[in-house]
């Protein structure tokens, strides 16, 4: 019995210690951000590996999610004779929820895990340590550019996801199911608000980008420097990111759309 309580205590202490280290890590890397504006080429390289390499996945997923929304939405709406509202349904679901959330989940799987693996590997091959001994702060030189790249990429990817998704919904709704295209677009425009819907969606994706990149980089930096440790850290990145995204999504949704 005492042993169980003790192990619970150890677990709690470890968790808090890790949380503390994570926040110190974040503070440290934020101090490296201003210098990056004078060496933006470092960020561009990372924008390529974090952002550009995720575009294809986002495009395909966005298109299919939009198409499925079109099909499912039509089948439900047609019962109420409201199939003209298909555009609203597709657009609002994508812009408010699915765009930011699904693209953040995909981003965590594609770019987040890659970041963790990369940083973890650099740690286990003593590259980070080596930089420190060359008087180069690895958190500022290696981690900060990746963080900024994640922060910039995420809203862009989410926007691409939503835009392609709306197009996918239109393809199915108009092309396959014959919903009037005028009604599709005009209803969508009437009911979708630039600030309440689109802009709040963008804010969501920025928050997700921040958190996912932070988790991914910290897991890599804090990984046990063995191949097994890096592997576990990569898994943790995906799992923790998913929890963080879905949990934060609820909080943000409640804050943004709760009082309607």
């Amino acid at each position, binding site marked *: 019995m005492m042993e169980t309580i003790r192990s619970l205590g150890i677990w709690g202490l470890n968790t808090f210690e890790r949380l503390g280290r994570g926040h110190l890590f974040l503070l440290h890397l934020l101090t490296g951000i201003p210098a990056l504006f004078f060496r933006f080429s470092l960020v561009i390289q990372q924008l390529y590996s974090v952002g550009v390499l995720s575009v294809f996945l986002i495009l395909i997923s966005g298109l299919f999610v939009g198409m499925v929304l079109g099909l499912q939405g039509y089948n439900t709406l047609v019962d109420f004779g409201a199939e003209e509202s298909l555009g609203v349904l597709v657009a609002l679901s994508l812009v408010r929820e699915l765009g930011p959330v699904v693209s953040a989940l995909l981003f965590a799987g594609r770019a987040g895990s890659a970041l963790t693996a990369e940083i973890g590997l650099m740690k286990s091959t003593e590259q980070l340590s080596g930089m420190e001994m060359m008087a180069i702060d690895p958190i500022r030189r290696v981690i900060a550019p990746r963080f900024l790249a994640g922060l910039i990429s995420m809203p*862009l990817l989410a926007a*691409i996801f939503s835009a392609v998704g709306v197009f996918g919904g239109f393809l199915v709704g108009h092309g396959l199911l014959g919903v009037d295209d005028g009604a599709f677009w005009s209803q969508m*425009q009437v009911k979708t608000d630039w600030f309440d819907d*689109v802009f709040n969606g963008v804010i969501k994706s920025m928050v997700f980008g921040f958190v996912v990149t932070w988790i991914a980089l910290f897991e890599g930096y804090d990984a046990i420097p063995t191949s097994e440790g890096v592997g576990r850290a990569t898994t943790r990145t995906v799992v923790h990111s998913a929890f963080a995204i879905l949990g934060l999504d609820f909080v943000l949704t409640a804050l943004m759309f709760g009082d309607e």
Partner: protein
Amino acid sequence: MMQDKNTEITVGMFVAAGIAALFVLAMKVSNLTEFTDEKGYQVIAEFENIGGLKVRSPVTMAGVRVGRVADISLDPDSYNAKVTLNLYSKVDNIPTDTSASILTAGLLGEQYIGLEAGAEEEFLQDGGVIDLTQPALVLEQVIGQFLFSKAEGEDK
């Protein structure tokens, strides 16, 4: 060096695509375009019951959008709903005896305000009041009345 250049170009394309997507969402999907002419003038209308009318609900005339609901509050004296309408400045020739009614788009659709032009020579100004109003049709009340009259009919 060649690799660097390609990286920069693809990153540039990525950022451009992202911004373009945001632009599409703003212009094509949402109603950002309306923001420009939202600066109009305001008139007030009092309703007995507004049903499910909300702030930002559309205001139409002959089916054409001429403004939006800007504010809804309760009048402390008459216990009526005081609705402030924001009308587009280009629609500046609405007669003072115009009537406003709360209508429903379709059976289950959202509620909006429909204006019906009167015959006066004078037009509504900023801060003007629409006197002729018709409250929202509340479905429960309609059904209630219907059942009530039906029951009365059976008694006879």
